[in-house]
Each structure stands twice: as structure tokens, then as C-alpha cells.
């Protein structure tokens, strides 16, 4: 057989079946076919694909792996190890061991395949269409990124500690705050999300906690009794940044529930409680199914009750916390804040019950410690 440019489908199929002890007309051509396969990547790939189909050892390779993966067996490596492995990293230098396991594991094999597909160079027409539609592919966007990275880099060296950095803001509020806010706003202008704002607000809360009430998703922070509330003379850079984003986005999308929520949270941090409660009441009516909104509203009432010692606001906050805890008794933020509300009414029995429950389930050591301290104080009375 004269060596052809490529093998035709029949030859591919026949070769994929080769190995049979029965002589076939293809046997005589085998050396030429194998010589061709030695040189032709395309035909090699076709032959192997044909054999793979014939073996049918695996499932449908086009099916996507679902987001929630099965928990691994004790022998299975962590998903992060598999991801790094697919990318070509093996810091533990145990490639042989990993290969041996992954090649035979019904959980790790598909995970590895998923990541190798994600990391491959191949792009579908749809991928290319998405990429060409992305702003981040444009020189203008990339220029902004470069400017922001340069600004961030210059601020990092020489580097004052974060604590003194914030004091410098307080000493030169107007110029530095504006410059920093502008630089950050340029960088972040296309990536503001409500989730990002929530993180900023949580950081502002923890950095400079001015309320007894516990803020959703915020790490524990010590009450700052020296500075007082988030007043105009001192504002956290996190809060400033959050406000800048919210102001811009609310203008573009004033009815968006997520943005209204974070706007209200920002107002709560600044003790602007009437507008916060008004906004939250409106959005809760629109979306009563969203527990997070109800929780925010409950906390806003609690804060206003503390501010003005208003019993009705305490009761309103209690009613909302009860509603939340009825659906989710282990909601730690609601439990913490309800205990505070009971303390103020006062209903020490119920407050102590809530602190006791919270101490059993609270995972954050800071919050757990505060709960214990509050319980101890009540028990001493």
C-alpha cells in the first residue's frame, strides 16, 4: 500500500479493530499504516478516539461536572490539589502517586478532566464571541488597570502600617480621602457589586465598631468608645469607598433591591436610621422572602431603639428577630441581636437563654467571648 496523506474512515475503523488474530486484508498494510501514524498527529488522534469509543470505558465526556462535587474518599486529594495538578503545579512532588490514584478514581478523574478542559487553549466559537465582547479585552480598560495597579503599588512602598495610615486620613481628610477615593473609584468603577459593598461595610464595622448590635457577615470587633459613632470627623476608608460605589450605582439603578439594601446598611453604620428603616421597609415589602433584608431591618430598629431608648422600636426589632429565628433558629446574628433587645427591655431571663444558646453554636471566638461576657454580667445581677 502506498502511504497515503491521511487514513480514510474505513482504515481508521479497521486499525482500531486490529489486534484480532484473524488475518485481514489490513494486516498486510499495517506497517505502512503504523509508519503513517508515527508521523501524522491527526490520524493518531482519530485512531485513538475510535478505539476509545469502542472501549466505552467511561461515560459521556461532554457532560459537565456539577458544581457540588461528591465529597472525596479519605484517599482522594483535595480539589485544590487537583486544580493545581491540572494547571501543571505539583508542589508536593508526588506526581506519580497522584497519577496512579486519579487515573482510577471516579471522583478525582472527572474533576481533573474538568480542570484540564478549563485550562486548555481550545476555545469554542461562543467562547471567542464572549471574549471579543469583553471590555477587559480593550486597550482602554487595560490602561485603567495599569493605572490602578501603579497607584496601588506606589501606596504600598514605603508602607506605613494600616493603623497609622488611617490616622493620616483623619489628619488630612479632604485631600487624601478625595485622592484615594478617586483612585479607587477609577479602578473599581466597572466592578462594583453589592457583595463587594457588603464586604467593605463589614470591614468598616469591624475596624471601627460603634454599636452593640452585630452586623451581618462582620467579624467581631471591639467597641470603639473613644471615637464615638461614624461621624463626619472620622470615616473609615472602607465606608467611604462603599458609599462612593453605592451612590453611583443607585443613580443608575434606583429600584434594585440589592443596591437599596447595601445603601441602607451604609446608613445604619452612620446611624442614619430613619432613612435606613424607610428603605428597608419598602424593599422588605417587595421581597418578604429575603431573610437578609428582614434581618437588616430588625437591626436598624434595634439601633434606633438604642439611640432614642424607644420601647416600640425594641419590640418591633424583637418581632422581626423572632420571625427570622422561627425559620432559622441557628441564625447567630439574629440570636445575638435578639439577646441585646431582651437585655434592654429588660427581660433578663430570655436574654440569658439566648446568650446560652448562642455560646453553644457560635463559631467565631470573638463573638462567643462577648456572648459569654454578657451572660456572666446578667448572671451576676
Amino acid at each position, binding site marked *: 500500500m502506498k502511504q497515503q496523506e491521511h487514513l480514510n474512515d474505513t482504515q481508521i475503523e479497521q486499525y482500531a479493530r486490529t489486534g484480532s488474530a484473524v488475518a485481514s486484508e489490513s494486516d498486510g498494510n499495517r506497517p505502512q499504516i503504523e509508519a503513517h501514524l508515527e508521523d501524522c498527529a491527526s490520524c493518531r488522534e482519530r485512531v485513538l478516539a475510535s478505539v476509545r469509543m469502542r472501549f466505552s470505558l467511561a461515560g459521556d465526556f461532554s457532560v459537565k461536572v456539577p458544581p457540588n462535587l461528591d465529597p472525596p474518599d479519605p484517599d482522594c486529594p483535595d480539589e485544590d490539589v487537583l486544580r493545581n495538578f491540572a494547571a501543571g*503545579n505539583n508542589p508536593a512532588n508526588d506526581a506519580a502517586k497522584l497519577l496512579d490514584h486519579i487515573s482510577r478514581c471516579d471522583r478525582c478523574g472527572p474533576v481533573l478532566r474538568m480542570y484540564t478542559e478549563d485550562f486548555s487553549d481550545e476555545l469554542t466559537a461562543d467562547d471567542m464571541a464572549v471574549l471579543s465582547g469583553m471590555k477587559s479585552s480593550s486597550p482602554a480598560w487595560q490602561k485603567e488597570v495599569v493605572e490602578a495597579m501603579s497607584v496601588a*503599588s506606589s501606596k504600598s512602598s514605603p508602607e506605613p502600617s494600616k493603623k497609622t495610615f488611617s490616622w493620616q486620613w483623619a489628619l488630612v481628610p479632604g485631600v487624601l480621602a478625595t485622592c484615594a477615593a478617586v483612585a479607587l473609584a477609577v479602578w473599581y468603577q466597572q466592578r462594583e457589586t453589592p457583595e463587594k459593598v457588603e464586604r467593605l461595610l463589614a470591614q468598616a464595622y469591624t475596624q471601627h465598631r460603634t454599636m452593640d448590635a452585630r452586623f451581618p457577615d462582620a467579624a467581631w470587633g471591639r467597641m470603639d468608645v473613644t471615637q464615638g459613632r461614624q461621624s463626619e470627623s472620622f470615616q473609615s476608608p472602607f465606608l467611604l469607598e462603599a458609599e462612593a460605589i453605592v451612590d453611583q450605582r443607585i443613580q443608575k439603578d434606583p429600584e434594585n433591591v440589592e443596591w437599596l439594601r447595601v445603601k441602607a446598611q451604609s446608613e445604619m453604620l452612620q446611624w442614619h436610621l430613619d432613612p435606613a428603616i424607610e428603605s428597608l421597609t419598602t424593599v422588605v415589602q417587595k421581597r418578604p*422572602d429575603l431573610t437578609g433584608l428582614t434581618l437588616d431591618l430588625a437591626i436598624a430598629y434595634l439601633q434606633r431603639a438604642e439611640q432614642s431608648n424607644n420601647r416600640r422600636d425594641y419590640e418591633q426589632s424583637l418581632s422581626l428577630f423572632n420571625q427570622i429565628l422561627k425559620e432559622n433558629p441557628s441564625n447567630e446574628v439574629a440570636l445575638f441581636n435578639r439577646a441585646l433587645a431582651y437585655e434592654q427591655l429588660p427581660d433578663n431571663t430570655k436574654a440569658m437563654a439566648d446568650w446560652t444558646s448562642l455560646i453553644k453554636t457560635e463559631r467565631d471566638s470573638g463573638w462567643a467571648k462577648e456572648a459569654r461576657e454578657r451572660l456572666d454580667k446578667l448572671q451576676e445581677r
Partner: protein
Amino acid sequence: MKVSKLSTQELLRLCLESNDPEAWQEFVRRFQPLIARIVVKSIRRWTHPAPSLADELVQETYVKLIDNDYRALRKFDLQHENAFFAFLKVVASNVVQDHFRSSYSSKRGSGRAAEDIETVGTSVATNTDSAGAAERRILINEIQRCLETLRNEPNFARDQAIFWLYYEQGLTAKAIAELPGIGLTVKGVESTLLRLTRYVRECMNAGSGDGQNKPSNRASATGG
């Protein structure tokens, strides 16, 4: 020296130590396509990748790189040129996954709607009917018995892994070649597969995998 000529390590050092905008420009120029590509393909696991979402997550990736005084970049230990590309792939993939998993769990946990999130895909399809699964298992065992006869050959463990990664796990030859510990080109992987496939076919057709009727071209069955 032109920044475009710098190695990855040199470029990284220049970016982190000198704050040179030209260096950062080269950084973005060089690595932006990779980051964007990984983000788009990773999003596709969860939902159709809208350009706006992809842009957002590309930005998140940069934030992660520069966060906390460029901690991730400063910590990175560049062993070889490709290591940084691998590092960026993992960071970008992580960003996308964190985004969707936190939206996924917050949708369940806090009552907040993750309205834009679609979960796609179903369970990995395998032969779920018991007869098909049993047949598959028998075939796998038979093939493994054949492969085992090569146990004493050099590179047996690697070659066996290549075989199963391709035929059972569905990786491409290219993907296999790029894995740590393989040490072969794509052609090398394919040649290994072809040799082992021929060997297994002959072994199975010979009727036993107990080594007594070894295929005639055993010496060429494994590559070195």
C-alpha cells in the same frame, strides 16, 4: 531593555520593585488573554458566560493578585516560566468558583435570591444501568490484567496511568502530556497509547491475560 523581552521572573520583579507603569502594562498585555480565557471557560461550568460577568471576574482576579500589598505575587515562587501561567490559571479559576459557590450557598442560606445563577449540567453520566456497569467493570478488569503483565517494564506506572486517564477518565492526549510527572510530548503520549492499545488488544484476543500467551511484539509495548 524592552520590557516585552523580559522573562516572566524579570517582569514580575520589575513590576513589584519599581512601580514602572510600562512594566505593569506589559504584565497586563502578557497575561490578560490567559486570565480572560480561563474566566470565560470556568464560568461556562455554571452558566452562560455573559461578557459583563466575565469582565467583573477578570477584575476580581486582578484584585486578588494585588490585594494586601501584592501578597499573592510576592509569595509566588517562580520555579520555571510556565509556573506563573499555571499560577494565574489557578487564581482565575478560584475566583470564578468562589463567586458561584458563594452565590450558590447564599441563595440557600440567607434567603437572598441569586437570580442570575443557573446551575447547569447533571450528574456525571456513567453507565448507570446495572448490566452496562457490570460489563464495563468486566472489561476494565480484563484490560487491567493485560496491563499487569507489563508490570516489570520501565515506566509501567506512568504508562498505565496514561492509559486510564485517556480511556477511562477522558482526558485528551494533550492534557495528559501537560500533567506533572508525565514527561512526554503529546506525540509521546499518543505513541504510548497506541502501543498499549495494540498490546491490550492482542492480549485480549489471545484469550488470556496471565502472561502465558504474551503478544508477539511485547518488547515494543512500552516506551522508554
